[in-house]
């Protein structure tokens, strides 16, 4: 069923279609509508789930962890300060191997206080053990929440996943989305079969006090699971494509990359705008390409190395900054491309929700050509910052 809906509605609808049985969340702008829609679905009798109104995001994640440990599919959503408050609890599901799915509506973290899009809420969570996917449009919000359960619950993975969507640019924007029928989603995503769960008549210990003799092996298990996820993400995307006719190409999507001189790597909605710029530049005879960096965890090292084989310069767009060192995506891309002798430069733009406009992206490609010719020496370029020469 094709309907014109917000990203928040698509997220709520996907949680319903995935048959999440327990939802616990605390409202925060711009995530609020996700939980409101879910509350409505439950109230209308469309969704059969327990909705827990909790007193904070820390409690939301605690409740979800406990619910998931009893062997049911769960869902939550948050943003910004809410995700920061949840940080302590985020380490628990990956280690206990609970495949929770959470929507994160990316919003700037105070101070200064703001409600608009920035990735400084999600990026600091990279080392907690969650898989992290950044989406480009409202259809991908819906599709990736459905896919996320299937990836997370795979027995070779068993890790939680964050589905990250841009504040307002997706959360409050309406666009056409195919909201799939229950029967089709059920066929793609069967009932959750937990590998192990709490049962009063057969007691089990989870998350107990663990001495150094064991914790290192537990961390290794998490590391292996994250590595396994690379393969599972690609396979689930294939299956999804066969079922619903839409594919996202796994960890990265390559857009006009094959014969490109320079490529720009982007995350989130900027990818969408950049697609149009790539078309326009191609029309002018410029061989430019675009790489949509979908997953920050697991990180697509191999895919990026293959792309780097055939291009003269690579640009990385970031919507948050690790102060003094450039953006997180840039830092990770450079790490992945260790040993390559091509310029890799960082573009910081759209921070705090500032609009990233067509001329900004044009400028990124211009800078990439200059870097390829050796005319641009800067590694980290702030775009559209008053008083700063880009």
């Amino acid at each position, binding site marked *: 069923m094709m309907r014109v809906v917000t990203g928040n509605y698509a997220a709520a609808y996907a949680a319903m279609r995935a048959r999440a049985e327990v939802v616990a969340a605390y409202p925060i702008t711009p995530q609020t509508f996700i939980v409101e829609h879910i509350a409505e679905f439950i109230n209308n009798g469309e969704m059969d789930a327990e909705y827990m109104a909790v007193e904070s995001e820390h409690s939301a994640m605690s409740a979800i962890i406990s619910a998931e440990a009893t062997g049911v599919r769960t869902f939550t959503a948050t943003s910004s300060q809410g995700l920061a408050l949840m940080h302590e609890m985020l380490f628990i599901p990956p280690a206990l191997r609970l495949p929770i799915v959470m929507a994160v509506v990316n919003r700037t973290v105070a101070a200064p206080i703001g409600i608009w899009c920035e990735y400084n809420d999600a990026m600091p969570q990279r080392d907690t053990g969650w898989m992290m996917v950044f989406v480009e449009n409202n259809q991908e919000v819906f599709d990736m929440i459905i896919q996320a359960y299937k990836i997370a619950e795979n027995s070779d993975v068993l890790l939680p996943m964050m589905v990250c969507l841009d504040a307002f640019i997706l959360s409050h924007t309406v666009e056409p989305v195919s909201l799939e029928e229950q029967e089709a989603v059920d066929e793609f995503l069967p009932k959750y079969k937990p590998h*192990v769960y709490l049962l009063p008549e057969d*007691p089990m210990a989870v998350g107990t006090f663990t001495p150094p*003799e064991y914790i290192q092996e537990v961390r290794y*298990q998490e590391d292996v699971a994250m590595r396994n996820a690379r393969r599972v993400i690609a396979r689930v995307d294939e299956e999804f494509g066969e079922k619903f006719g839409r594919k996202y190409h796994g960890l990265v999507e390559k857009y006009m990359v094959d014969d490109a001189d320079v490529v720009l790597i982007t995350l989130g909605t900027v990818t969408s705008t950049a697609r149009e710029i790539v078309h326009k530049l191609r029309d002018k005879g410029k061989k430019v390409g675009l790489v949509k960096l979908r997953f920050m965890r697991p990180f697509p090292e191999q895919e990026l190395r293959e792309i780097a084989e055939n291009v003269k310069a690579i640009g990385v767009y970031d919507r948050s900054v690790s102060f003094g060192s450039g953006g997180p995506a840039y830092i990770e891309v450079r790490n992945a491309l260790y040993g390559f002798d091509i310029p890799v430069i960082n573009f910081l733009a759209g921070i705090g929700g500032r609009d990233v406009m067509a001329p900004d992206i044009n400028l990124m490609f211009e800078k990439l050509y200059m870097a390829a010719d050796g005319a641009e020496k800067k590694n980290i370029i702030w775009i559209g910052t008053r008083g700063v020469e880009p």
Partner: protein
Amino acid sequence: MLAAQALASAAFHDGYYGVAFPFFGAERRGAPVLAFARIDREKIYQKTQIYEPDCVVVLDDKLVDLVNVAEGLKQDGIAIINSSKKPDEIELEREAKVAVVDATTIALEVLGTPITNSAMLGAFAKATGIISMDALEKGIMDIFGPRIGVERAKRNIEAAKKAYESTDIGVCKGGRMFEKGKKWLPNWDELPIGLATRALKTDVGLVGIGSFVENKTGTWRTFRPVINKEKCVNCLLCWFYCPDGAIKRVSDGVEVDYDYCKGCGICANECPVKAITMVR
């Protein structure tokens, strides 16, 4: 742990560089714990635990029967043991230089509790000659003073002095067999996923939920609660208060499970009719 800190501090007062640190297990006060100290004239950089000590100090006499305390002890090293026995009555894995002091009795006399750490430091000073009693007094005051007050720290110094004077040095018997400490150390892919464990039987015993059945914590005990059935009114307060579930309900009242009772004395303290006494 405090003893190791006081030792490092005492060493410092004698012009050494001293480092001390504890390693805690999963249990609470009274449980066997390890503490390490290094003393040198030079700055110490090594941050690892100690596997081949020059000196091993055993604060709890019952551990000698349970743990191979001489394991890793250097050939010319010394074991300092809290015991009422003579050095040649002590039996370890091999013959070794030992120093013996009845620290529990000294602690009970001087401090009124069986906490033997300060007395054992006195024995250490006597047995090794590495640190002076003067420095040890300062070390104990440095570490114990702020924690338990100057007066009680002084009594700990007194206990150390008394132990210093009554430490008996000799050679112990060897040839005692110890079962090699067995641990469940599975590879990463043999561990239950996410460590979610139901009761698990391994070749070294139970692991996971309920496995503490095999950990007979009664060996930690210095005092043992004895219930006078004549006085007992079966109010069950001891049963409620026992933090280890070591008081069992039986047909004619309550009974102590000495396999697990750690001898904390809470039951005796709570008993409203004083039917429980703590006996050494």
